[in-house]
């Protein structure tokens, strides 16, 4: 078994050596130290002393690649791990050559597909460059095809985007015209309205005066009624009928137990008499009644509000109840809302009163009023159509200001949403709008962010999008989403993660991203295939 393996190894060695020979014949192979690229080979001359690339030192050539680091720039040890920051070059014939850090040389891990980095660990690595090369080429071809297909779609997207933009621009032009027209109409309508309103106002003057008079009469009647009530009350409380109410007389009545301690103190009673000991009926009506009346009303149950802030245990209970309610399930909240609505409906409508003379307009006046109303309506219509138009203009302007890519290729995504479902949530990306998370259980969706901006670096601005100011996390920041955009044959979210609490990362494929930058180009550095 062992011998067989050995044989294979020798065969393999011979094959690879002959390959080397062939490539030496075909190419321009010069002898070079292990781990050195072709382009740097001339810097290593076995017949001469070696000078570090940074010129810091000159050493005998025998100390190149002797597994001791002499040059601070690591240039003397391209093929060993002796220098900390050195670079090892693997030829990787059959695949693409590679520069790896010197720390990866002879560490027991096969980093180069030709195994050249692990020369001290014989038998450790299998040269799989040919296989890798094959699959890399296949992969590259697939990628190329994908890119090709993607580019076509991107072209469509772009055309669509440009077209949309053009349409929007045209629409904007039209809207601008319409807006001007609407403004003109508005001015016209305003003039008509003002005229009609002036006529109406003149006609209504007579009724206004009438109304004033009515109000005056009403007020007088109210005052009289109030005074009569006051006098009645005065009579009631003036028990000894001496024409004066003494505070002691008020003390008989629980009505005046302000602090509800079951006892009307002198202080409490005097409060109602403006701190006087007693009061005649005149003063009672003018000074005291305003204070007394609310307490009588409370007693009679006609008045429910607290007269002034008083310590009230029931109020506290309520607060506690409220807290508990707040903690309860949302459904209950909804229920109570429904209840509140129902209650509103139950409130009885005010009974129809007799129409007062001030509202009994004559026919002429009514006509003028109708005309004015109509003019007002027309003016309002004109105004709202302007608002509507302005809104439309704003929307279009916003659209036109949006950066949909150098060729408008991302515009095609605008107005669409894309979904991704993992085992717990469905995620939604609505490009240029927002990102969303919805539990599969069907409960409320959570906004993970609103469209903010392109986030990529200057040279590749369109590689990621930022959606921020989403719903705030419990005890944490506002949610946000970074959408990483890459080339794909159709629009698709391929993964969603939350690497930091409340910071989401979506991976999104779209043909719109199938440009040179995103396609990672061809295999540059294929100089030694």
């Amino acid at each position, binding site marked *: 078994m062992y011998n067989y393996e050995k044989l294979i190894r020798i065969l393999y060695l011979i094959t690879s050596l002959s390959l080397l020979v062939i490539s030496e014949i075909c190419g321009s192979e010069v002898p070079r130290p292990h781990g050195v690229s072709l382009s740097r080979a001339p810097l290593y001359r076995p017949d001469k002393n070696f000078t570090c690339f940074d010129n810091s030192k000159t050493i005998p050539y025998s100390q190149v690649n*002797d*597994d*001791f680091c*002499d040059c601070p720039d690591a240039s003397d040890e391209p093929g060993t*791990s*002796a220098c*900390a920051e050195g670079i090892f070059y693997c030829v990787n014939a059959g695949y693409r050559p590679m520069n790896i*850090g010197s*720390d*990866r040389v*002879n*560490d*027991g*891990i096969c980093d180069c597909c030709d195994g050249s980095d692990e020369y*001290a660990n014989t038998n450790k690595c299998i040269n799989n460059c040919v296989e890798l090369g094959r699959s890399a080429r296949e992969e590259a071809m697939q990628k190329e095809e994908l890119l090709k297909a993607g580019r076509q779609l991107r072209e469509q997207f772009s055309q669509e985007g440009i077209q949309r933009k053009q349409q929007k621009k045209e629409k904007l032009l039209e809207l601008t015209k319409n807006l001007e027209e609407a403004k003109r109409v508005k001015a016209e309508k305003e003039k008509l309205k003002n005229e009609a309103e002036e006529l109406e106002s003149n006609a209504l003057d007579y009724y206004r005066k009438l109304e004033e008079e009515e109000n005056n009469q009403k007020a007088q009647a109210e005052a009289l009624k109030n005074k009569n009530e006051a006098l009645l009350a005065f009579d009631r409380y003036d028990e000894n009928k001496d024409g004066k109410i003494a505070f002691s007389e008020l003390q008989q009545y629980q009505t005046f137990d302000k602090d509800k301690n079951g006892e009307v103190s002198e202080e409490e009673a005097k409060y109602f008499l403006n701190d006087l000991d007693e009061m005649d009926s005149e003063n009672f009506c003018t000074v005291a009644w305003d204070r007394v009346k609310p307490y009588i009303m409370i007693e009679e149950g006609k008045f429910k509000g607290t007269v002034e802030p008083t310590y009230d245990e029931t109020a506290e209970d309520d607060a506690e109840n409220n807290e508990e309610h707040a*903690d309860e399930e949302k459904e209950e909240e909804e229920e109570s809302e429904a209840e509140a609505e129902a209650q509103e409906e139950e409130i009885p409508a005010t009974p129809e009163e007799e129409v007062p003379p001030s509202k009994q307009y004559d026919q002429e006046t009514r006509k003028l009023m109708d005309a004015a109303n109509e003019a007002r309506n027309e003016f309002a219509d004109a105004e709202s159509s302007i608002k509507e138009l302005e809104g439309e203009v704003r929307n279009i302007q916003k659209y036109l200001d949006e950066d949909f890519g150098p060729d408008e290729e991302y515009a095609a995504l605008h107005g669409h949403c894309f979904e991704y479902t*993992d*085992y717990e949530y469905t995620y939604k990306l609505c490009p240029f709008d927002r990102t969303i998370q919805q539990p599969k259980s069907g409960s409320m969706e959570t906004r993970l962010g609103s469209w903010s901006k392109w986030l990529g670096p200057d040279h590749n601005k369109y590689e990621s999008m930022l959606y921020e100011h989403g719903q705030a996390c419990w*005890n*944490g920041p506002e949610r946000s989403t970074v959408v990483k955009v890459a080339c794909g044959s159709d629009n698709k979210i391929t993964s969603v*993660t*939350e*690497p*930091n*609490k409340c910071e989401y990362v979506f991976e999104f494929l779209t043909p719109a991203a199938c440009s040179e930058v995103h396609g990672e180009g061809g295999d540059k550095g294929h100089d030694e295939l």
Partner: protein
Amino acid sequence: MHLVWRNIFSFFLFCHICLAVVKDNFKECEQSSFCRRLRNLKPGDSKYVLNLNNLHVSENSVETELWNSEENVKFKLVLTALAGDMFRVYADEVSPIYPRYRVQGVLNGEPQVERLDVLKRDKDEVIVQSGDNKAVLKSEPFKIEFYKASNLVAVVNGRGLFDIEHLRTKKSETEGEENSLQKEDAGAWEENFKSHHDSKPRGPEGVSLDIHFPGALRIYGLPEHADKLALRTTGLGGVEPYRLYNLDVFEYIVDSTMALYGAVPVVFAHSTTNTVGAFWLNAAETWVDIKNSKDQNVVSSLVNLVSGQASESSVDAHFMSESGVVDLFILMGPKPKDCAKQYTKLTGVAPLPQYYTLAYHQCRWNYITEDDVTTVVKNFDDYNMPVDTMWLDIEYTDGKKYFTWDPIKFAHPDQMLKNLSSTGRNLVVIIDPHVKREGGYFLHEEALANDYYVKTKDGNVYEGWCWPGSSSYPDFFNPTVFNYYKGLYSKLKYENVDSDVMIWNDMNEPSVFNGPEITMPKDCLHYGGWEHRHLHNIYGIVYTAITYEGLLARNPNKRPFVLTRAHFAGSQRFAAVWTGDNNADWKHLAASFPMCLSEALAGISFCGADVGGFFNNPEPELLQRWYQAGIWLPFFRAHAHIDTRRREPYLFAEDIRNRIRTSLRLRYAHLPLWYTVFYEHERFGEPVIRPLFYEYPNDSEVIDIDNQVLVADSVLVHLISEPGATTANVYLPGGRSTYWYDIRDFRKREGNGFTSVPVNLDSIPVFYKGGSIISRKNRPRRASTLMHKDPYSLYVALDNNKSAKGTLYIDDNESFEYKKQKYLYLQFEFKNNELSSSLIDNTDYESVEWIERVVILGAPTEVSKAVITSKTLGSVDLETHYEGDALIIRKPGVCVREAFVIKLV
């Protein structure tokens, strides 16, 4: 269910707002009946009398009767001489109504006894001798004095606070009233704390003992506390006694005597002439009052000043435990080194860990998927930052059910492991003791079916709340449960994967979210009918013993790795320890050194603090400083809370990345040193990291220094724990004749005490001690496992005699083959301009490692070359050159297996 969660939630919410411990959740001494009772004992003549007429003498011990004269209760007292200069003092009731709890499984086997001679014997006094140690037992008042040679170094019951509350039956109400002379504490038979009731069926059973240390300047020990290394006087200014009760303290504060996750009841009283230790073997809740004469009140110091009396310094320690017996070990020193060795002789050492466990560990709550784990490692590689071990916190499980994997996020653990091991990386996952009470969960069902759980006082299965919600707690004190649980670790073994999943044990105080003080009620019942109160502090160590044994059973050829939060004396035999859930602030960085130094003195060397701070987001300067300091603690792991931003070091700006990379590489370069020191710890029992007083016991200036650590005796590290530092006040010990070489530029300084050293953001002050030889592996690699064949660079730091010595330990880094003599233990020595290497033991290991470079610090001038001589090389000339003050010998190229001599010419 909903409600409880809400409460837990609001608990956390509250804490996040205040960002500090909720002190109310934890008892003060006054809130605990036994602490109140025992702390109220008045110093003075002891009510205990030794009946020395009735003395039983054996070859190793004397036994006599101890009598509580007030309550007329009899106890027996045994004093035993132990090998290695120790005494053991044991006291228990002669005929208790139930047995009192004796701690099991903590000592590293039964201590070896030593011959003891009785020098004097009468009714008042008995003097015994063992080696140059003497003990004097005094009858009335009861006292035991300990002498090293002729120096009195410790007095047990020096202040008369010795007390064993004998077990009794509860008096009926009326009886109690009649017998008003003996007023019992209100909480003696039951007590409440917050909403929790403790039924205390056995009533009072406390144990109290004081030790007076004449001449002592400082006292150290009693981890785990987030406090200074030197213990302070308690009681003064309301400072609570040091509390030892393993607790899950949420957002703990620093500079506090509050209990934390671990409890190691050992103290070391130290003066410049003598050091003596005391180990109080008791697993129940324990409080310790400390009194240092330097903190005596102003009046008495004035009196001394006026009277001109040079008051001798001294320290007193008063141990107060809720239950158990008196089992006290006096470690006779006389130097810190001796005490440390004596203590590890009793409780054991950390077995040599696998090499990679000394390298960098990357943790976070949580890496969320298998891809996440792979990506993080890839990023480390892309940024050329080394990392050895990836960690998974609780979210990897299927719904917090340990020994399961999340079926979606971690569906292919074997594949993930394979990926990790393909670049030499390893994995540690968390396993906690609480068991989710969920139908269908094998562990819960088997535990229920076989009656494996801890019971309530009424005999029902105890149910508490932890990460999974409703949980129960296996009774690991039951040998059947112990073996059953041990077997579970085979579930985490994967065929065809050349890597073992190692284990992180958390929440093993045990943590119970809705329990009293966030732990298990004291009246819960364990195997043998013991209440939880009797053994609370060893629940954690028993759990880690299971893990260690389980891993060993799973793969007998690989050294297990276990990290634990809860710990006790002896935990070093099973697990490394970290300082729990610290915070991303400068104070917690500062606390990391004294906390781990304290653990190291108490036998637990493999200690570290979460780099960066667990809670909250560290500012970049803090994070850099934390890496710079963290690489010099034995256990080196970054960890972060789930609510923090990601902070893997490659995520930062280039300058920060570069500094952290430099720190990581410095750690990796010194792994041979760490590994050697860990080997020597196992072999000789000395701590891996040491405070200055340990190596410089005669220097009174260093007794309070705890912002510096020594790695073994050869590397001195000064912690920078404030922002914007431009200088550091580094204490360089040893006097003028001791040299310290700054490892940045190899500049030599003398050990003249406090020295101002300039610093910038790039590094913290680190020095090699003159006279030491430190072996490094300077070639950066992705992981330590990939460095095994790399060559060594020897740093020879010369002392004032132009000589130096050092050791290097080498083996296969992972197996137990070293127990079969398959290792190399090298002695390097430099003197008379010659560096030589020789084997200390007659052993061999087939190492291919070689010597790449020798760097001589403080080297002689005008060296033109060096000549190496060895068996296979013969004599070969070596190039040399100077870099600053250092002389570099180029490429000796000799294999470490071979003895050699290099001569400077």
